[in-house]
């Protein structure tokens, strides 16, 4: 028995919720970053499922774009985190509130 669309979407929602929860509760920027990636994966999973369900390639096409953008984003994001650590000696978000002033 093949799992239906419902099952894929449920997994996607759970993945997204875990990611979002992580973003909300974790203090380490690196972990927050991983959680963000998790949310992106949830979106790609949902898109692939929709694509298969509708017998169209549009969703899969989107996934390629998302993977590309995510790769670029990670490159930039990790660079920022490294730079932040060098400058401030910490990657904990509670210490990174200088934009307030």
């Amino acid at each position, binding site marked *: 028995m093949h799992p239906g669309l419902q099952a894929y979407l449920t997994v996607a929602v759970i993945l997204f919720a875990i990611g979002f929860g992580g973003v*909300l509760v974790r203090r380490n920027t690196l972990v*927050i970053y991983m959680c963000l990636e998790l949310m992106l994966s949830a979106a790609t999973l949902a898109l692939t499922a929709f694509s298969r369900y509708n017998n169209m390639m549009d969703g899969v096409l989107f996934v390629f774009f998302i993977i590309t953008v995510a790769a670029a984003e990670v490159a930039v994001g990790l660079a920022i985190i490294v730079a932040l650590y060098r400058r401030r000696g910490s990657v904990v*978000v*509670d210490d990174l*509130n*200088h934009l*307030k*002033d």
Partner: protein
Amino acid sequence: MSITEILAVILLMPLASAVLIAVFLRKYGKAAAALSTVVGFAIMGLSLYAILTWDGVTLHPSWEWLRFGGYAYSMGFYFNSQTALMLLVVSFVAAWIQFFSIGYMNDDDGQGRFFGGLSIFMFSILGIVLADNLVMLFVFWELVGFSSYMLIAHYFTTDFANMASKKAFIVNRIGDFGFLLGIAWCWQHYGTVDLAQLGAIAAKNPGLITGSAAVGIGLLLMCGFVGKSAQFPLQVWLTDAMAGPTPVSALIHAATMVAAGIYFMARVFFLLPPYTQHWMMWSGAAMTAFAGLCALGQTDIKKSLAYSTLSHLGYMATALGLGYPGLALFHMAMHACFKATLFLGSGSVIHACHHEQDIYKMGGLFKKMPVTGLTFAMASLSIAAVPFFSGSYSKDTIISAAFMKGMNEGSVYYGVYALVLFGALCTALYMGRLFFVVFLGKPRSEHAEHAHESNAFMTAPLVVLGFLSLTAGWVVYGWNWAGGKMDWVMPAVTVQPFMAAFTEVTESVEKAGVGHVLDIVSVVLALAGMIFTYFFYGKAGEKDPVAARMPGVFHVLERHGWFDDVYDWYVAKVQERVCDVLAIFDRIFIKFVCVRGSGGAAGLAGALLRRTQVGNIHAYVYWFLAGVLLYWAFATGKI
């Protein structure tokens, strides 16, 4: 070159000169003086050439300037015999006055500025002379006001010159506001502002010029004339304008600019209904007598002459009001000769006395300055209308015309005659007073003691203009030469505008059999006035005899009937109070509600929104979550 091209060159040359002086020659006063004067004489030569080669057919070239929707503004020339006369007078007098300025302004630091100003003035006045429509005329009208402002304020380090220049500009603005409304109304009512088309409309349908709209347009257009030609009630600026250098007073505030108002009225005379003419006649005649009297109360030589100018502008306005624009132009031309001579003569005297202007600090200058004295005497006789001097031909004809109006149209108009005749008596009195106090008697100060004749730069224009003060009026005898192109000292075409009116008035006076009576009355008044002043002022000490005997009367004349005081009171007490009331609106609505209100609202919003910016990334994620929820609720129709 065609005449149109010559006219364009004439108009643009002084502009080029002004630009050159402003950009390159500000520091080189002598070069600026030379350039400006050479251009002045070139304009004179080209004008003469254009007038002499003109075939008498009205020229009206025109170019489109701007277009807004259906409205096209054009620029062009409207060249008829009136234009020729005014062009001749302006270019001739201006050239010689610029020549005089070289000598007069010799030791001045601001020569570049001064001659640049004269050039821009020439550009402006020539624009007025040549303009073919009211909009173009208005543009140059304002430029003339600007150059007058700039030249009055030449000695800008003195408070008085600054105040006088502002006063002249603002008072003129009041008149020009009416003028502008008049132009707009004229366009709306007649459908054009082109002088030639307006003339055609007026000729085709005389009924159009009698309605109430026509009266309104006439009165509003007259406002421009009232401001520029210093007529009642805006006459107060002219006497203060004497704060400028004397050549400026001679050129702008006596010979040309103030006469431009007369020229403008003569040019649109067909637009003036009888009601407007009546106003001009009565106010002009009253100004003639009143300003003539006030001239007797001035101890400053230039102010006395300024009142004389007011008085003579009154004569021209009277001539316009009597229905003889030609006579007004005739008097304008003669007045330009003798009043320029008088002002330049006073300039020569002031220069010799080290910028002393009080006539009771002068005296006995005739022997020391024979050329100045002699030309001043000739111009004095001319302005007092002694027979065979130029002034008598124009002035006595205006007086006769006023008398004929009284004879033909009701005795109330004898009032006009009485006023202008009284003005003539005043002329004899104040000119006699000036001449006898300044040139005869004993020197009353150190400077007058050591005065000596001015150099040739200053005496040459005096001789030329003084000669014309004596002889220019002889054009009425019609001595043609150069194959009929010239009539005595003027080109024949420039005599045309006034010759018909002159002949008409002289003939009607002859026909009525009063010619000799009128002549004798005028002559007796002029001579009696002068002889009286010889005995009354000839032996005067350092105080005016009237001031010594009747200080009250002298004070009234000195303050010229408290016009300035009334205006001061009006501005300070009435206008300022109205402004205070208007300021309440400004303070409550604009300042409080609009400015403070909007600023405060933005500030408050900013203060509230800043509270959301806590700087913690988790807080932003919660905001983001809230935003998503809000969007979701909105998209699914929950709210």
